[in-house]
Each structure stands twice: as C-alpha cells, then as structure tokens.
C-alpha cells in the first residue's frame, strides 16, 4: 500500500466537521449560519484574496466616482490646454492650477483623470457584458440540462461551434458589421461569452439533476418552471459565480484589445485600451507614461479580479466543502 495520506474528511462519514455527523448540539451552536455567511467566512480566511478584494473595491470606487475624484475632466475640451501636452509625471499645468501626477498625453489630458474615466468604461463594459452573457447562457444551459435530448444537442452544438472560433475573430467580425459604440461592443462581448456560461451551468445542472432532492420535487408534482429556477438554479450557482468573476476580467481584457486595435469604442469614450493605444507611439521615445500608467491600471484591475475569483473557486468548490 502506498503511503497515502488520508485526512479523516475523506473517510465516510465526514469526520470531525461539527456540521455533519450526529452532532445534536450543532443545530443550536450555529444559529444564523446561512450558506452566505459560511462563504464569506471561508473567503476571508485567505489574506491574498482579501487584498485582491480591497484593491478591486478601491478601483471600483475610483471608477464610480471618477467625476468627483478626477482633478480634471479630460473629455471637456474647454479644460484642455495643448501647452500641457506630453508633460512628465509630477509636472505643473501651464496655468499652475494643479499638478499632473501621472503626466499628460499628446492632447494635454491629465493621465490620472483619463485613467479614472477609462476605468469607468472598461469596468462598465466588462460587467455589463458579463451580466448579459450570464443571463442568456445560464438560461440556455439550464434548459439544455433539464430537457436533454434534442434540445440539449442543439444548444450544445451551437455553443461548441461558437467556442471553437477564437474570441477575437468573432468580435472583430461583429464589430466590423455593427460599427462603433458602447452598446455594440457589449453585444460583441456577449456573443463571445455566453457559451462558457451555458457549458458551465449545463455541467453542474446535469450533476444536480441526479440528486434526490430533484426527485423529491418531481414527486411533489411541482411545476417544471419552478423546479428549474427555484430548485435547480440556486444549486448550480457556485461554478457560475466563479466563471463570471473571472470572465469579467477576460471581458475587460478583450475590450481593451479591441480598443487597442481601434475597433469598438469611439474616441470620445476611451477605455483603458484606447489610452494604451494612444500612447503606443511614444513608448520608445521617452514619454512612456502615456501608455504605461493605463497599462498598470489595467493590470492591477485584472489581477485583483482574478485573485478574488481564485479564492471564490476554492471556497465554492463542493469537494472542499463540508
């Protein structure tokens, strides 16, 4: 026999978790332990994830309150002064009113403000497209798992075809057809992402479908719609939450890529990608800050979201539960 390390949790019954086994006192000991509370408690056990969460909260606040936080509105032409262009970080504005902490770009826009506004667009587009894709993909995936047979085959084949194309390619084609605009880029991102959710939810729905509480609901002659959305869906959420969190980061990245390539968002509503693109020509001529700082902002955003998503994945993993 190999030196197999076995934790008692692997041996049935799950041993000494106070929540399981014949622990009669446990029902009183954990008075208000909703599943949500447990998730939060488990999540907070990891310092790195908490750091990620805090950073993302700060970024989110910066994005939401951009108009209040920004020293300057970079898209108000009246506030710009071409004399301020391409100034290094820390320089003073021509009229001496305020400091450009992160420098200016070639139009004289304060980089710090541009980043705040850019975060707004980036995160807004990322979150909005994720939520739409989540709604559409989840519904389709649940229907596929619940009804099986032809419905399942049809939906999954479409999802498979969709997933076999590179995301960028689909997005490029769609944007070439649809043109520019925030709504159009959201449509493109949704079209690219819905299949992940459908697959994910179908996987866990197929597992949950076999469990006895679903049989019990059928025994009780509950209407199908109720069973799917009130019984099945809540139990398929954990992997969905993880995928959605990480996909927000992916959506932001994809949008940044598309903007960098010059598609999707108009100049008047630049996201971080566009800012990076603008400054690209200056990277090697010494005025690094025009691309660099938006790049850092993008990096930090994505990393913080991924840290949160990683910990959520561990916390919500049913195997590590109990």
């Amino acid at each position, binding site marked *: 026999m190999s030196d197999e390390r076995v934790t008692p949790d692997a041996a049935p*019954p799950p041993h000494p978790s106070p*929540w*399981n*086994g*014949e*622990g*009669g006192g*446990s*029902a009183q000991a*954990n008075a208000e*332990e*909703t*599943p949500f509370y447990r998730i939060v408690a488990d999540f907070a056990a990891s310092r790195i994830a908490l750091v990620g969460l805090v950073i993302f909260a700060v970024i989110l606040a910066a994005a939401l309150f951009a108009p209040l936080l920004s020293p300057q509105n970079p898209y108000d032409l009246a506030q710009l002064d071409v004399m301020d262009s391409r100034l290094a970080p820390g320089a003073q504005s021509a009229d001496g009113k305020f400091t450009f902490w992160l420098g200016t770009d070639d139009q004289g826009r304060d980089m710090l403000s541009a980043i705040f506004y850019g975060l707004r667009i980036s995160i807004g587009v990322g979150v909005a497209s994720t939520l739409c894709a989540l709604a559409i993909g989840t519904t389709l995936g649940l229907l596929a798992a619940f009804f099986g047979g032809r419905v399942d085959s049809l939906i999954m084949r479409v999802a498979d075809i969709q997933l076999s194309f590179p995301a960028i390619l689909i997005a490029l084609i769609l944007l070439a057809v649809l043109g520019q605009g925030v709504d159009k880029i959201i449509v493109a991102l949704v079209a690219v992402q819905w299949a992940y959710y459908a697959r994910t939810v179908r996987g866990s729905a197929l597992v949950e479908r076999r*469990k*006895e*509480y679903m*049989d*019990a*609901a*059928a*025994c*009780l*002659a*509950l*209407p199908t719609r*109720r069973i799917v959305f009130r*019984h099945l869906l*809540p*139990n398929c959420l954990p992997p969905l939450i993880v995928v959605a969190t990480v996909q927000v980061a992916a959506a932001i990245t994809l949008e940044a890529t598309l903007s960098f390539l010059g598609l999707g968002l108009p100049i008047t509503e630049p996201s971080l990608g566009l800012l990076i693109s603008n400054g690209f020509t200056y990277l090697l001529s010494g005025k690094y800050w025009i691309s660099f700082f938006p790049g850092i902002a993008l990096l930090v955003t994505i990393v913080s979201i991924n840290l949160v998503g990683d910990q959520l994945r561990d916390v919500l993993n049913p195997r590590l539960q109990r």
Partner: protein
Amino acid sequence: MNGAQPPLLELRGVSKRFVKSLDAAARIANLFGANARDEVVHAVDGVDLAIRQGEVVGLVGESGCGKSTLGRLAVGLYTPSEGRRFWRGEDVATLAPAARRRAQLAIQMIFQDPYASLNPRMRVQDIVGEAPVVHGLVGKSAQREYVASLLERVGLDASLMRRFPHQFSGGQRARIGIARALAVRPEFLVCDEAVAALDVSIQAQVLNLFIRLREELGLTYLFISHDLGVVQHLSDRVVIMYLGRVVETAPTEALYEQPNHPYTQALLAEVPRIDARHRRFAAIEGEIPSPLAPPPGCHFHPRCLHAMPRCKIERPTLREIAPGRLSACHLNDGNDRNDPPPVAAAPDTEVANEA
C-alpha cells in the same frame, strides 16, 4: 384479495428497461460489420405487485435487483416500459390531469440519502411548506403554522424551521424528509432505504416514527431495504427480488421461518445475527451477475445449490405454493429437493423433468 375494495396501488406486468443507445461512432462501425448493440438493462422484468390499504409491504434484495427502480415506478418517477400502474383500481395513465396530480400527491417517497435528498439552498420551512402552498392545500399565511405542526409530528423542534439542511444531523434530516412527504397528505409512502444511512440508535427512532405515523395517519407503506432485520420488524408481507424479478413473496413470519426459494434461504442464512457467535461464514459462491447480461432461464441458477438443467432454459413463473405465498422456482413443481418445500405443490403443476 378480500372484499370488493381494489388494492390501493397495483403494478401489473411492469417492466423497466434502460437503454444506452449506440453513439454515432458505434453506428458507423456497425455499417462496417461490427456487431455492437444497444446496451439494455432490464432493471425490472415483468413484476406484479398489489398493495392493499393499510399494509406494510417489505421489498428486499441486493444490488441490481431492481427494488429501487420498482419503488420509483410505484411513485411515478419512472414510467414503465411495459405494464400498467393502478391507483385505487384506476389506470393512472388514463386519468385526467387534475386526477393524475391528486394521485401523484397521494403517493410520496422517502429517500435514502439524508444529505442529498434535501435542497441545500432552501430553508426547512420552504422545503416542507412549498408544495402544500403551491397545490393550494394550505394558504400562504398559514404555511408557518402548518410546517410547525408537521415538524412537531415528526419529532423536531419547530423553532428550527428557518435553518438550512446542513445545520442538522443525519437523523434530523431524515425526519425533515418525512415531514416534507407528509405535508401533501399522502396515503401511501414508499420508503427507499430510508434508514440505511442512519446510525443504529437513530434508525430505531426513525423506525418507531414510521410505526407511529402508520397508526396515527392510517398510512400504507412499501418499505424497500436490504436489511432483513428491519424489514422483518416492520412488514406484514415481504417481497424478495433478484435481478429484476420477484422470486418470492409471503407473509413475514412464514417467510422468515420457512423460506421457500433457494435465494431467500441463502439470504436468510448469511445475514449476520447478534446471537450467532464465532460463526463459520460459509457463503454461497459467485458474484451477483450484472444486470446487463443476466443468466438465461432462472437468473439465480449459476449460484443455486439445487440447480437443474431445466433452470438454465426456462424462466420459472411466480406461482402460488400456499395461500398468500408465491414463489418462482422449478423445484416447487415436483418434490425432488434436499429439504421438502414447506407446502405441497399446487395440483396443476407438471412433473419436473430432470436428468
């Protein structure tokens, strides 16, 4: 059957087959001459079962015997591949939707796994109280009280109804499952290994609860279990299954004292008992065959000590060997065995035909 009352639940000639059809690759291979076939599992094979009101029928067998499938056929979770299901004498398939729903609610199931049979994301109040409200048995405002009375009836503290299943122990969850079934006012309960996953001391409590509910509410039970001791204690009548077929059925005492079918005899002989110390376990040989490829003729013949050539070819029919006792064995057709059958063979049997 006594009186003009039809049995409460009846399954006639019921079979259930699970087919795993060939995928595209196998079908293409078949075009080239491969002989792949669909995999068919005959989980239940031509079973007749009639349960009268107020009876407790125990259904016993080992893995692959089809008892769980039969239980689900009885409740209506599966539709039979063949055969019909009757509720109070009426074929359920022919009922109008409203009547069918009433029939569905009247037959409820208690599940085996106390962890998987409760929705982990719902509070106990909703688990128990959802169905009666949805079906209009109880008003929404009265739900809380109704659930409280049900929880008390099954021996749980009603103040815990806002909690989630993971906050309860296995025995408590079993009780919640029972409360959920009782909430829709059933007349018939199918208990599918309902106490198998519980500790012995909790098992005793839950079994006592079943006995009490039977008296208080006049329930009828189909009690599925692999545990012969539990079945003996609870049931009026016992049905033994092997590989999808019923091999014997008899009133409990008669079955345990004088089992007729060789499989029943082996089963009863091999059960460990507290009174049997330092036993020399001498088990019957052989594995339980896979339901995918059951032996021809009598399914039990490869493991049977009394097997005859006839047993390999001909499936024995389930016939009455005494009032209320049925058994499916060719040995009952004659009197050639080591121990004589407990009752004389019925007058219309043929003489056994062996070498």
